[in-house]
């Protein structure tokens, strides 16, 4: 069960293709799975970034940030994951909005692909924006290009596309008078918050795929609770997508850091430094 059939890496982002026929048949854009590498592992949520119902496989992009993702990164083709549960969460609402902007950072570069694809099939004009520190850190671009009318880049060092982040591209688009009917964002919490700020003044309907800490993923524990519009919501069953203009970001940031002490205890010091960047630096040093 849950055998890894394909695996590759682009700068700390590990593409893992897993045999999970039931999920491959049922999953829709915007849903996720909860996986355990081994019997002793933590249950961690990962977005389903693509699937092949006929082959019975799903595609996950796992960013190595801590002990669980590190162990997943070390697994090999032919190994099996101990548990893969899903599909979980409410699928993205797909309809003909008009012009849709999708922004993805880190694992979200892979994660926005099925949403882009479904939006395209529903007749939208799809503009995808992806961000990374450096141009070589992008992945899955070709597939994303195929389902987007436009694919825009943002890099911190300006090596490709706009120098900056996804929200900088959004600001540029708005300045140029680009009409946006719906925005979706997926990536780290800071990015989601900044992108939501970017669309707020123009009141662009904005969905963000939240990544609060989860345990069961079925609404049973409340670990994943977030405040949206002043109400408690469970990200695993009411989300993961919520209105980005209504999310209590400060609360989410602090809840996400709840286990920082224990996490770093088992891994190493991972604070706010991006692991992809760290690894990139190491590779540069090595030459």
């Amino acid at each position, binding site marked *: 069960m849950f055998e890894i059939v394909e695996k590759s890496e682009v700068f700390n982002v590990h593409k893992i293709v897993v045999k999970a026929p039931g999920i491959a048949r049922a999953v829709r854009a915007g849903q996720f799975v909860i996986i355990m590498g081994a019997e002793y592992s933590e249950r961690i949520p990962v977005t389903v970034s693509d699937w092949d119902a006929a082959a019975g496989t799903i595609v996950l992009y796992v960013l190595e940030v801590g002990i669980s993702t590190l162990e997943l990164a070390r697994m090999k083709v032919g190994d099996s994951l101990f548990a893969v549960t899903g599909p979980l969460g409410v699928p993205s609402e797909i309809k003909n909005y008009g012009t849709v902007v999708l922004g993805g950072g880190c694992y979200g570069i892979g994660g926005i692909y099925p949403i882009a694809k479904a939006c395209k099939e529903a007749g939208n004009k799809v503009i995808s924006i992806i961000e990374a520190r450096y141009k070589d850190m992008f992945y899955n671009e070709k597939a994303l290009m195929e389902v987007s009318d436009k694919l825009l880049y943002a890099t911190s060092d300006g090596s490709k596309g706009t120098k900056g982040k996804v929200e900088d591209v959004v600001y540029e688009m708005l300045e140029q008078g680009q009409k946006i009917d719906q925005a979706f964002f997926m990536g780290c919490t800071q990015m989601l918050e900044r992108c939501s700020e970017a669309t707020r003044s123009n009141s662009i309907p904005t969905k963000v795929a939240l990544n609060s800490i989860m345990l069961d993923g079925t609404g049973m524990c409340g670990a994943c609770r977030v405040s949206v519009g002043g109400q408690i919501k469970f990200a695993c069953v009411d989300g993961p997508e919520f209105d980005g203009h209504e999310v209590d970001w400060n609360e989410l940031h*602090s809840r996400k850091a709840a*286990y920082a002490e224990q996490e770093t205890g088992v891994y190493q010091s991972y604070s706010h430094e991006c692991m992809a960047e760290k690894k990139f630096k190491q590779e540069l040093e090595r030459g």
Partner: protein
Amino acid sequence: MGLTAKERMAIERNRMGEQPPDLRNRNFEEVPYGYTPEEAVNEAKRCLNCKKRTCVSGCPVEVPIPEFIALIAEEKFVEAARVIKTKNVLPAVCGRVCPQETQCEGQCIRGKKDNTQAVAIGNLERFVADYERENNLIELSEVPKKNGFKVAVIGSGPSGLTVAGDLIKLGYEVTIYEAFHRGGGVLVYGIPEFRLPKRIVESEIKALENLGVTIHYNSVIGRLYKIDELFKGLGFDAVYIGVGAGLPIFLDIPGMNLNGVFSANEYLTRSNLMKSYLFPKYQTPMIIGKKVAVLGGGNVAMDSARTAIRLGAEKTTIVYRRSMEQMPARAAEVHHAKEEKIEFRLLSNPVEIYGNKDGWVTGMKCQNYQLGEPDESGRQRPVPVEDSFFEFDCDQVLVSIGGQANPLITKTTPDIKINKWGYIVTDDWGRTSRQFVYSGGDIVTGAATVISAMGAGRRAAKAIHEDLMKESNETTGDNGK
């Protein structure tokens, strides 16, 4: 046996040996050691074998109590276990977790004057079930010829396991779908190891698998398959829903989302199912509170408090709106909790949880309560005392004030009737509003007990059998000839 009633009456109730409180509050090993065979026989001799079997009428599934006790007195332990199993398939579990003081033992003649002197029916039940399992004497039921019908059971809690066990023995092909990566429901994710060792639940599940029950873990019905797909795509003839009432309730007061506030479900699932008490060998992290407040007065609250103490809390306090007498927890658990130096702050309830700038709990503001008029259930209603507040020092808050129905299945299957609280509506036999869909356990009754969930499973299995046999006779036209 030759004892007179008077001689029987003269025997004092046998207490089970147990780990001393200041040892056990630092480990997760089971608290009571269980009876020795001598103690069990001696306890069994206390039973008067009454004509009017009040104990049996106190038992929700009517275990033939005096009969199995008589066998213990004759040292026929395995036979005793089998007598229990005609009515209760999980005696090792029920002997440990049933609220005997309000059920069988509460009705025992010997406890009429002094309720501490009722025959220790629960301890005896546990003893024979353990004896049978530990000596590998569990009888393998014969697997009957398959009758060609397929039944899907959703959820592997006590009610789902009972349905599966009953139906496999009647010749059905049975498949359990369980959301978690391990089976047993609350028995594995809620009730802690020190009260119910997980190997007991594992061996029950293994026994079902040996009989041919298939269990698909990691399978959330409603998401992976909808009920319709179980019938159409997967060809099941009937579906049983035993998903429990696992949706936590939080208080509607400021501070509920601070770090350090947990639902009891989350706290216990981390510790039990994910074994975070063995962190970092098991990788699920846990926040260890120093001063822990547990809100609520049921079994869930006692389990949370006793887990907190074992994880290393310096001080753990149960904060409860009502009084000691009104606590719904099993008497034995309250007693154990007190022995383990868990404190009780009764007739009080928080109105706000305070936090620091990083979002961590720093204390609570509580209000004093008093008991008022009795409510519909006859319990005196707790009413807040006006302008009577106090500060409570704590860094962790475990919320154990009850659960709700999880809407995952009913939302995706709108033709199953639910009541205004979201629980599934059934007849006395577990039939839902949709043909060939049955349900029982906490998702029908709301949070209840292991034994009532099992009783519901047993009744539903009967109904499933009856309905499918009727259907099969009608379609083949032989009308049962």
